[in-house]
């Protein structure tokens, strides 16, 4: 509108969210450097079996990371993703093992229970105006408690449902390409990521998630039903936790009710390392997946190098701080 703006004109074709793209490049470069480093210094790190281990570990955290990315972009946070994952696994166990129902019902049970819990979190946040941090802290405990109650604090095994193995550890791709033993769980993670990415960038829901995280008041004034879309976002996030519940329990061939605490922090870390802003309004699914790979490569590599397990936690903390700092620096340049 002014003449002064002429100097800052740029035909920004394809330049939207350039910074997010840059951040992904940085994160990807870090991942490659870590892979190279451990390949050289950690014996057997580069072995195929170990790569499969890393991929399997990434699958669960990656899917949880995707779940939490939706919520963080919408300007919220979800501390319950880890224990919701556990409860969905327990629900699958109850349906398949205790009730002896067929596999598809177990899958539906896991996804639906996750969706319900997410919707409840979203409802307390949207309607009761409870801050997301507190509301999901409550849900974290509710889900953890229910998982222990429903399972009577004992693991539920899937021995009566042998096909349950096909969700994560089995490798169906070997039927097509013999020898390429990539577990199904890894493919499921990528499928979840691709669908999530399309939802985020090409659907109304995705557009509104970015709008909510950018400026909730503007979203409201634009005629958006803010409460409905918030609840939908948390419900979707919960359902994705159901996918993670299936993956983790398939891999362990059991629903472990005591598992889950701490997974939420790894998932949030994956999102943040991948460039998702905790302030809301910015983030990508690809970034989160790269972030999840960085986390599991680090864990795996340090373990193989014989570094005391606990150091991984320290390093993770440092990486989160560095990632957020990089975010701040890049944002200033924007």
């Amino acid at each position, binding site marked *: 509108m002014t003449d002064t703006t002429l100097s800052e004109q740029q035909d920004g074709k394809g330049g939207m969210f350039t910074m997010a793209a840059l951040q992904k490049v940085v994160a990807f470069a870090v991942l490659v450097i870590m892979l190279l480093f451990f390949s050289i210094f950690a014996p057997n790190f580069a072995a195929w079996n170990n790569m499969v281990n890393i991929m399997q570990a990434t699958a669960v955290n990656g899917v949880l990371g995707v779940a939490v990315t939706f919520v963080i972009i919408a300007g919220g946070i979800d501390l319950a993703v880890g224990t919701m994952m556990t409860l969905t696994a327990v629900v699958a166990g109850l349906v398949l093992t205790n009730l002896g129902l067929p596999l598809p019902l177990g899958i539906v049970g896991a996804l639906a229970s996750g969706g319900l819990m997410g919707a409840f979190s979203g409802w307390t946040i949207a309607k009761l105006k409870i801050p997301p941090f507190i509301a999901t802290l409550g849900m974290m405990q509710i889900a953890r408690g229910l998982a222990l109650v429903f399972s009577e604090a004992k693991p539920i095994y899937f021995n009566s449902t042998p096909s349950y193995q096909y969700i994560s550890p089995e490798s169906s791709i070997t039927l097509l390409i013999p020898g390429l033993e990539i577990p199904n769980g890894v493919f499921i993670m990528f499928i979840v990521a691709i669908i999530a990415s399309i939802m985020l960038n090409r*659907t109304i829901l995705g*557009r509104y998630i970015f*709008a909510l995280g*950018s*400026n909730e008041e503007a979203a*409201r004034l*634009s005629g958006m*039903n803010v409460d409905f879309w918030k609840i939908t976002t948390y419900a979707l996030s919960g359902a994705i936790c159901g996918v993670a519940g299936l993956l983790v329990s398939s891999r362990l061939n059991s629903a472990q009710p005591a598992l889950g605490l701490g997974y939420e922090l790894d998932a949030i870390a994956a999102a943040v390392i991948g460039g998702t802003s905790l302030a809301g309004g910015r983030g990508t699914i690809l970034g989160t997946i790269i972030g999840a790979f960085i986390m599991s490569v680090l864990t795996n590599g340090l373990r193989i190098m014989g570094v005391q397990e606990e150091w991984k936690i320290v390093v993770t903390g440092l990486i989160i701080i560095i990632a957020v700092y990089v975010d701040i620096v890049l944002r200033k340049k924007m």
Partner: protein
Amino acid sequence: MTSPKRTPLVELRDISISFGGIKAVDHVSVDLYPGEVVGLLGHNGAGKSTLIKCLSGAYQADGGEIFINGEKASIQNPRDARNYNIETIYQTLALADNLDAASNLFLGRELMANGLVDDAKMEAETRRIMGRLNPNFRKFNVPVSALSGGQRQSVAIARAVYFNARILIMDEPTAALGPHETQMVAELIRELKAQGLGIFLIEHDIHNVMKLCDRASVMKNGKLIGTVDVKKVTDDDILGMIIMGKKPA
């Protein structure tokens, strides 16, 4: 303008709204005719923005009635207001900073193709309207947080005029603008007025009021001091209303 035979486009009757015991708007009635610009004036905190937020659906009045084209209207939220072809340019602009111009322009009213948002079409439409409003605007693919104040303002204005508004609410549309940009907004207001839109204009600059408005309604401490025909009064008369709360004799 105020001939009793014509039906006002908008009639706000006896509107009241309180926040925590404080009467922000106290039994205020104003109206607006097609092709007319009505200035809303008063000090900060006089209740102007609060009053028009009852019309734009951002607030719901505690008391009073709203008539659109002579019929009683129920405006519970911003979506209802849009259905009555009421568009608002908020003082804060109400833009989603992380989204680009097109996404902001169509926020809440996205163009769709095959169930997905049609970004290409929305950008084309945004380029079309911006070509008219602000031909220098080029930053179509960056988040609006990267735009200058004037550019952001033009996105907010484009959003308000794109959807064929019949009633336009402009809350200090030139507050963040330089003289050249202010001139462009003034021309736009005249153009929209000529098209038959009714415009409520909240404005502090008495000069702009005298230049752009047909009538001016002055508020003080939540109450309406009075509504005057701008051609029949002087700057000083209006300033007297704003400052002293006195209607000119």
